[in-house]
């Protein structure tokens, strides 16, 4: 009997140790959700970045084509095709890497959300009953006036959560730094791709919208009725370059939230902001996929 209580005491100590872990299993599940959604959104952004790069390149080629000889045209087109093919390969590699990152967050979520409490409680209860048949006092033992059998469910629930917390802490001790570096690199990738997309988008608007507006304006002819609206639209389109703002905000928040999570200081407010920024990124990815 004393031994049984000793074992229960050890279980309770384990439980308390697990409860002391500040990066909680519930948070892990939600941070993992954000990581999965981020990784899922990246392919659409990479595809859009390629579409913008190829559009800007094609416009540049087309604008200058008339001043080149046939040989020069052929040579230039081949060089530009080669560079864009290399770009496609790089973006494919980044997409493949996003899948590995996604798998990591899926594994983190799976650990956080595995719920075997009922199963363990059932097995523990049946074990206690069998032990009771072997050693009668166990069946009638009480702790604090409660029969041992009645304590099984709550203890098992907390013990399972404690195990998950301990496993999570071990994982964070082993790899929080590596995941932080990974997310910092993702941020660098988004920044580089974002700057490229913005520059290509700006060039596209320059050639297709601002230049015609300028030429119309300087000619000695009356301005078309919609000239002002077209001008305003062209001016604000670059400033509202949604993909760059949304993606940068999402990865910045994911990076900072991961650090806060690993250090056990991620609050509900931070989590809510992270999930909102990631939701914006998901909406953007859906929109980009729809436009493709």
């Amino acid at each position, binding site marked *: 009997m004393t031994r049984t209580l000793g074992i229960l005491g050890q279980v309770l100590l384990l439980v308390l140790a697990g409860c002391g872990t500040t990066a909680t299993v519930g948070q892990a599940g939600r941070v993992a959700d954000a990581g999965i959604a981020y990784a899922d959104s990246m392919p659409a952004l990479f595809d859009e970045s390629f579409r913008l*790069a190829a559009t800007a390149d094609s416009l*540049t*080629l087309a*604008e*200058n084509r008339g*001043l080149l000889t046939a040989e*020069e045209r052929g040579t230039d087109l081949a*060089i*530009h095709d080669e*560079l*864009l093919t*290399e*770009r496609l390969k*790089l*973006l494919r590699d*980044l997409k493949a*890497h996003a899948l*590995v*990152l996604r798998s*990591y967050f899926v*594994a*983190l979520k*799976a*650990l956080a959300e*595995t719920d*075997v409490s009922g*199963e363990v409680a059932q*097995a523990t209860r*049946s*074990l206690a009953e*069998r*032990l009771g*048949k*072997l050693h009668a006092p166990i069946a009638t033992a009480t702790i604090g006036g409660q029969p041992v059998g009645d304590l099984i469910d709550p203890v098992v629930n907390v013990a*399972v959560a404690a*195990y*998950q917390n301990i*496993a999570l802490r*071990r*994982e964070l001790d*082993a*790899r929080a730094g*590596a*995941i932080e570096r*990974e997310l910092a*690199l993702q941020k*660098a990738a988004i920044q*580089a*791709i974002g*700057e*490229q997309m913005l520059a290509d988008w*700006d*060039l596209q608007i*320059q*050639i297709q919208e*601002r*230049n015609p507006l*300028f*030429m119309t304006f*300087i000619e000695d002819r009356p301005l078309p009725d919609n000239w002002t609206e077209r001008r305003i639209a062209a001016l604000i389109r670059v400033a509202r370059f949604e993909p760059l703002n949304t993606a940068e905000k999402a990865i910045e928040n994911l990076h900072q939230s991961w650090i806060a999570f690993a250090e056990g200081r991620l609050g509900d407010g931070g989590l809510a902001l992270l999930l909102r920024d990631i939701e914006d990124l998901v909406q953007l990815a859906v929109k980009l996929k729809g436009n493709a």
Partner: protein
Amino acid sequence: MPTAGELRNETLRELRAARKDMASARFLLALRDQPREVQRDAALKQLRTQQMILSLENAVLAEIRDQLAAQEQELTKGIAALAKARKNLTSVARVLDALGQVLSIVAKIAKALA
């Protein structure tokens, strides 16, 4: 002293700004009155600029891709460790259940021997 990466980024910014200037209506208008050779020279320069932009952008992405690839081993280790922790968790129920089966057999044997 700027790093190689900072220099490359600064060069990219300058090249993109030059590309934008050369594509502007104001520049094209000024070029319109120039001899054809000057126009051809500008066109060739604009295309070289575009090629350099693509090359530098590819170099930036290749560097990030390589650094990310170096991280993959850690990610894979993490995936395995998390899967193992989860497997241990789900196996607890099975272990307890199996132990219960053994105990009930022991109980029957003990009863028969009593």
